[in-house]
């Protein structure tokens, strides 16, 4: 998550200019395509997959069947994609967890990210915001860090479980800010929000889309955002990096990617990559994603590969820190 944001559109243009001919099967796609999603219908990753696959089906001229196989934080969706025998017609969209932290957190994962997964394209990213109750004594990040630094566990934060994006981000933040906060795990962001509003806990990291309504209603306030640039969904929220003693490269983002099983025909991957890049360049699609709190991304398969490797390293270090504490 430290890689600087790249010119996604440039990458998209480059790929579509040199769209390679399909080596094996000129007629691909000759049948309906299956896209596995490791989350239930109606969840945010599912809706995102549908936003992308709807125009993709039109481009490919074949229907795309979304296969919801929820479970184990998205891991089951990937396992099912790998189990399907139908190479070149079976793909998946997934959040970052199953590709980056799952090998550390999930025993019997059943796949090796480097060997079994062929990256296609990064679909979208979402920063997180640091949220406190509207009547929290401090109004900015420096005040928050000062309050948290008074004594270990002076402040608490909520997450959606061990190893979740919210947990890891908060631990990365504590590490960089030099404070110790008390971790209170919940099962959903809605619960975390309620607990902050009800003053049970002090703070939490969450997607801007989950927090904005409560900010408008005067129940929560946002102290900063974890992206490197301001985010359209959270207008006026200051970037945390470089502030209040945080390093300038501080950055934490959730993301969502389109992947294929390893061994998928290179031509198929190139076609999908250029088609999805073109879809993500469409302003209507960008707006639909943004409404759900996602920033359209794009880029080459290699860039996605690099992002997986970088994030695995960063979050691995954070997990080491968490394990050392307990």
């Amino acid at each position, binding site marked *: 998550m430290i890689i600087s944001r790249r010119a996604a559109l440039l990458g998209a243009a480059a790929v579509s200019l040199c769209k390679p001919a399909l080596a094996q099967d000129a007629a691909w796609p000759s049948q309906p395509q299956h896209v596995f999603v490791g989350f239930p219908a*109606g969840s945010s990753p599912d809706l995102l997959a549908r936003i992308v696959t709807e125009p993709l089906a039109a481009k490919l001229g074949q229907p795309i069947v979304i296969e919801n196989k929820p479970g184990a934080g998205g891991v089951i969706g990937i396992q099912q994609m790998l189990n399907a025998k139908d190479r070149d017609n079976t793909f998946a969209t997934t959040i970052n967890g199953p590709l980056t932290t799952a090998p550390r*957190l999930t025993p019997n994962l059943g796949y090796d990210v480097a060997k079994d997964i062929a990256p296609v394209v990064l679909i979208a990213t979402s920063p997180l915001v640091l949220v406190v109750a509207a009547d929290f004594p401090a109004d900015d990040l420096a005040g928050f860090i000062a309050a948290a630094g008074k004594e270990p566990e002076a402040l608490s934060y909520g997450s959606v479980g061990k190893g979740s994006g919210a947990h890891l981000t908060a631990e990365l933040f504590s590490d960089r800010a030099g404070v110790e906060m008390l971790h209170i795990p919940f099962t959903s962001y809605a619960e975390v929000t309620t607990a902050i509003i009800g003053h049970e806990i002090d703070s939490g990291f969450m997607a801007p889309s989950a927090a904005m309504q409560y900010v408008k*209603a005067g129940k929560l306030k946002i102290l900063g955002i974890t992206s490197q640039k301001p985010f359209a969904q959270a207008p006026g929220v200051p970037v945390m990096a470089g502030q209040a003693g945080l390093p300038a490269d501080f950055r934490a983002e959730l993301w969502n990617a389109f992947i294929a099983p390893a061994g998928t025909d290179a031509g198929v991957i190139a076609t999908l990559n250029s088609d999805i890049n073109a879809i993500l360049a469409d302003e209507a699609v960008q707006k639909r994603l943004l*409404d759900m709190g996602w920033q359209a991304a794009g880029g080459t398969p290699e860039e996605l590969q690099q992002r997986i490797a970088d994030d695995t390293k960063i979050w691995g270090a954070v997990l080491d820190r968490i394990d050392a504490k307990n």
Partner: protein
Amino acid sequence: MSGWEGFLHGLSVAVQPDVLIYCVFGVVLGTFVGVLPGIGAMATISLLLPITYYLSPEAALVMLAGVYYGSQYGGAVASILLRLPGTPQSAVTTLDGYPLAQQGRAGVALFTSMISSFFGSFIGIFVLILLSGVLASAATAFGAADYAAMMILGLVAASTIGAKHPAKGLAMVVLGLILGCVGTDVNSGVQRFTFGQTELMDGVNLVALAMGLFGVAEVIANIHVAERTGVPPRVALRDLLPSRAELRRIPFPALRGASLGSFFGALPGTGSTISSFLAYAAERRISRHPERFGNGAIEGVAGPEAANNAAAISAFVPTLALGIPGDPIMALMLGALVIHGVQPGPLMLEARPDMFWGLIASFGIGNLLLLILNLPLIGIWVSMLRIPFRWLYPAILIFVCLGVYSVRGSSFDIFAVALIGAIGYALSLARFNPALLLLGFVLGPLIETNLRRALLISRGDAMVFLQRPIAAAFVIATGLLIVMALVQTIRRKSRGAQEAA
């Protein structure tokens, strides 16, 4: 906008032809899938979700909500006739509904359940109109300690259901609590009792558990028995309806159940499960003939059915007004709204009054439709019992398997049904109550996480359960219940001793 103005405004939205048509479609479909064993509102709504892209947001939500509460009417049919509850709430309905059906009073049980459901829904709507603002703030007032204390009260109250053998009832609750531990521990990320199965990381599938414990076990036990007893005789129409004396036993239990349901339903979590078990326990406690419960007591059907339908309605309050879904079905509804760019939350009542009040008004219309639709169907449902069981049970099994599969597309869950079915049959042979196991299973994870969360937040101070007023009230109520039960037992024992002397 006050509640009544809002409701009238909502009526004007709900009677628009396109909304009305989807309301009808939703409740009819809901009834149908509710009757089918295994497949319930959850699977149907997730399968319908893609279709809602093409509807207006109001029509989409009204249709999905119709499926949700329509399936509760249908679910009662399967629970009463075949002892096939798809949810923990309808497991309570089997406790007295199924004995009634076995006594040839299936029509009466169905009538009671439908009229109580209708009654419960209307009270739910009424409470919602009066208290929509207050109910929304109740959810934020509840903290971890309060939830833990509330659920422990629910468990203690409900475990009196198996009062003839308290140890056997409690053992089932505890076994359910243990089963609820299976899966990823939220606090530590540790995989508990998964034995290396990725499919178990999110725990045992609730539908597989309910279908195995009740459906499969019941089928095994019944194949032989049903053939020996043969086909029940054709019943006259007036036998389908309750007698006047029976009719009189419906309103008050339904009123009590609906009040419990309206309150607990508004609390995110498992309000609806707790309220139906509490309603049953309450009816049993205040009844002058508690021994009738479990053998076909009308009150044992009326109370819980009214409670779970009232709860189904008030459950929309935290979902829409706070963006906090109370259960997985509500989470799906939230997803449906997000598809249409509507973000549920504190601003929804002001920003989208059409949607909020239109939905509430559609509950009224939908429930009326359900009553009109279902009352004439009672005769048909009852005559279904005249189909020889050997024709029925293979179909039941297939539908159970497909229904379980439809929840998350996992063959593993069908294997689980076979294993749980074997265990369920063994439990039924030894006369253990599977409804209590289901209750423990649903509440267990919530009790554990809230208990641990409360102690984390209080930095290890157990006094938090007495310092928070809501938690303290529940703790005191739990204590009173236990003392009352002890006093009763001692009195009964000493009376027995006197008589012996």
